[in-house]
């Protein structure tokens, strides 16, 4: 479990949230602004926040559009708006405790647990949510001339998720906003749940607290998945669900790149520290100020979730353009290419999944039905794992290039990149869940819901990993800055 290079630098910034249940941990690990007690503050905040969202959606929408989403998912909608929000604060905790009581294994066990928590609390089921998204997207296609409408509508469909976000945002500092953030909240909880639900893991937690890095946690999760796979190989009923994010992530070398990035980050961090101790007086004050600036640009990751829903980007070309833009001047062409390619193939996959069914409903239905929900789920998990691994690889290569070329790299460009990547993950997870909903229209909720929840969970985890990798770049940008200023004073 403890990683090969762990012993030397235990208290690095890469520690992962295994020790407490704070949902605010990921986005803000390096920023001092989010207090750990945010969970407790949450209920009131959310109760206030929710009404804010609804009117916005209403005002923006044309009356016709407004009625539909309000009617269709009646039960959950009403639960949600009438005092159901009081539960929100405890919702996360409930997941946690329920999961702790159950034996929580990665993936299947967990999603079931969470589903249980959802149904018992009257939270809109993922199926409904996803259906609503789909509905909105259809509407969006219909009334293209007013794209803002539908985005607002989607936002309202994701209202349940968005309002969770306020937990994360309780300090007022906006990290990545909107639905994805809420997913991340769930995702981080998942990690905690995994930790809590596994006594074996718990026993080693003392070590984890001090030494764990993200790649270790991931490796552990992957190992558990491997073991689970081995154990369930004989029982066929379990076999269907097996699409293991962690194993796939490792297959795409995501773990290795993360590990390597962590090594560079850690070494840079200790170099920065030692430079700071050798400086004195004005020099030190100046450097501290510089570092503070860098730190700031690493804590302000913002993106407008509305944008995510507005554009369709069917073939991934839009993503490619944004990616190229944000990587301009950074020599990581080969890696960028890999990522774009992965994204394009994912988009093609999604197109293949959606188009035939809509176009050829009558004639070839029998043939098309071969795509089961499990297939879609597997494709979704696989794509998320690949895109995340490629994103981590990109950050790793960027780190190497920054250290290697020692050219000035703006932290803002890196945060822009993070936004682009997270948006893409968010977008794809939404597309995949809507594929799931379509493919599983004949399935019962207890089959479909865990699958949809699973996709959302892994998307949330993906975004967390990407943001964590982004944070790992901070010491690297810092040491690069120090070296550059040292060079310029020498001249």
């Amino acid at each position, binding site marked *: 479990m403890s990683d*090969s*290079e762990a012993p030397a630098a235990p208290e690095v910034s890469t520690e992962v949230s295994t020790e407490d249940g704070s949902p605010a941990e990921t986005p803000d690990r390096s920023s001092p602004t989010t207090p750990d007690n945010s969970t407790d503050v949450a209920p009131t905040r959310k109760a206030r926040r929710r009404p804010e969202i609804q009117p916005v959606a209403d005002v923006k929408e044309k009356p016709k559009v407004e009625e539909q989403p309000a009617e269709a998912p009646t039960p959950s909608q009403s639960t949600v708006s009438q005092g159901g929000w009081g539960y929100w604060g405890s919702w996360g905790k409930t997941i946690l405790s329920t999961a702790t009581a159950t*034996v929580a294994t990665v993936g299947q066990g967990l999603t079931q647990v969470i589903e249980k928590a959802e149904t018992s609390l009257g939270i809109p089921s993922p199926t409904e949510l996803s259906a609503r998204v789909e509905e909105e997207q259809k509407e969006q296609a219909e009334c293209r001339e007013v794209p803002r409408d539908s985005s607002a509508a989607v936002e309202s469909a994701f209202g349940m998720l968005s309002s969770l976000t306020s937990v994360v945002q309780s300090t007022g500092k906006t990290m990545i906003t909107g639905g994805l953030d809420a997913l991340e909240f769930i995702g981080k909880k998942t990690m905690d749940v995994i930790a809590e639900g596994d006594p*074996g893991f718990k026993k080693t937690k003392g070590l984890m607290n001090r030494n764990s890095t993200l790649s270790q946690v991931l490796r*552990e999760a992957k190992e558990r998945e*491997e073991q689970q796979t081995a*154990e369930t190989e004989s029982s066929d009923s379990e076999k269907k669900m097996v699409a293991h994010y962690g194993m796939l992530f490792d297959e795409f070398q995501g773990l290795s790149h993360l590990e*390597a990035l962590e090594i560079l980050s850690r070494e840079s961090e200790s170099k920065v520290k030692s430079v700071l101790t050798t400086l004195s007086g004005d020099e030190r004050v100046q450097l501290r100020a510089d570092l503070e600036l860098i730190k700031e640009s690493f804590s302000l990751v913002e993106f407008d979730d509305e944008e995510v829903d507005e554009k369709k980007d069917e073939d991934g070309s839009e993503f490619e353009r944004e990616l190229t833009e944000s990587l301009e001047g950074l020599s*990581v062409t080969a890696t960028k290419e890999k990522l774009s390619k992965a994204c394009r193939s994912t988009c093609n996959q999604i197109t293949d999944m959606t188009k035939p069914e809509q176009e050829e409903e009558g004639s070839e239905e029998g043939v098309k039905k071969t795509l089961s929900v499990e297939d879609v789920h597997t494709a979704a998990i696989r794509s998320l794992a690949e895109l995340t691994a490629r994103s981590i690889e990109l950050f790793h290569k960027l780190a190497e290039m920054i250290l290697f070329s020692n050219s000035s790299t703006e932290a803002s460009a890196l945060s822009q990149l993070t936004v682009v990547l997270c948006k893409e993950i968010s977008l794809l997870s939404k597309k995949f869940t809507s594929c799931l909903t379509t493919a599983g229209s004949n399935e019962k909720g207890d089959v479909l819901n865990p699958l949809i929840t699973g996709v959302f969970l892994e998307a949330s985890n993906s975004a967390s990993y990407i943001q964590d990798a982004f944070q790992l770049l901070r010491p690297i940008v810092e040491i690069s800055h120090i070296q550059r200023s040292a060079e310029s004073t020498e001249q």
Partner: protein
Amino acid sequence: MAYAYLFKYIIIGDTGVGKSCLLLQFTDKRFQPVHDLTIGVEFGARMITIDGKQIKLQIWDTAGQESFRSITRSYYRGAAGALLVYDITRRDTFNHLTTWLEDARQHSNSNMVIMLIGNKSDLESRREVKKEEGEAFAREHGLIFMETSAKTASNVEEAFINTAKEIYEKIQEGVFDINNEANGIKIGPQHPTTNSTLSGNQGGQQAGGGCC
């Protein structure tokens, strides 16, 4: 999928000696004559079997360029095995071996198994370094030695697997502390551990990681 052990390898040596090609031949069983210059480090992984046990090799293929040296050195630590590669058709790559070796020994653990590889053995007509010279260097510095060809795949499997065998033997002899991951060895998820605390964990928990 599950493995008994995971070994971390590094591949080092001058630029252009065929490090990435060796890796590609080992992991994908193919040869790619034109290869992009490796930036920093790239990765490959493959499962092998030794003594009936599944062993996963996680291979870190480092950039050979001098200018990347300060970065790639960071990756040496925690490797159980190293493939130190030179090109038999380029004398200078052989002459640099001492520097590479010093570097490797300095930045990794002392038990790391090092395999010296004279690559491009298919280019016999352009040979500049005799096989005997490679053997002598290896003997002098306590390395294992082999000539390989990433192009024809000759000895490529053997190079990776023999290194793993050596590491495995060292584990059996107790030279490597397998519970210390700084040695570049990890016990797989299903491997019964000797550590009493850990086995206690596993007894009670089906999902016990079995690692530490």
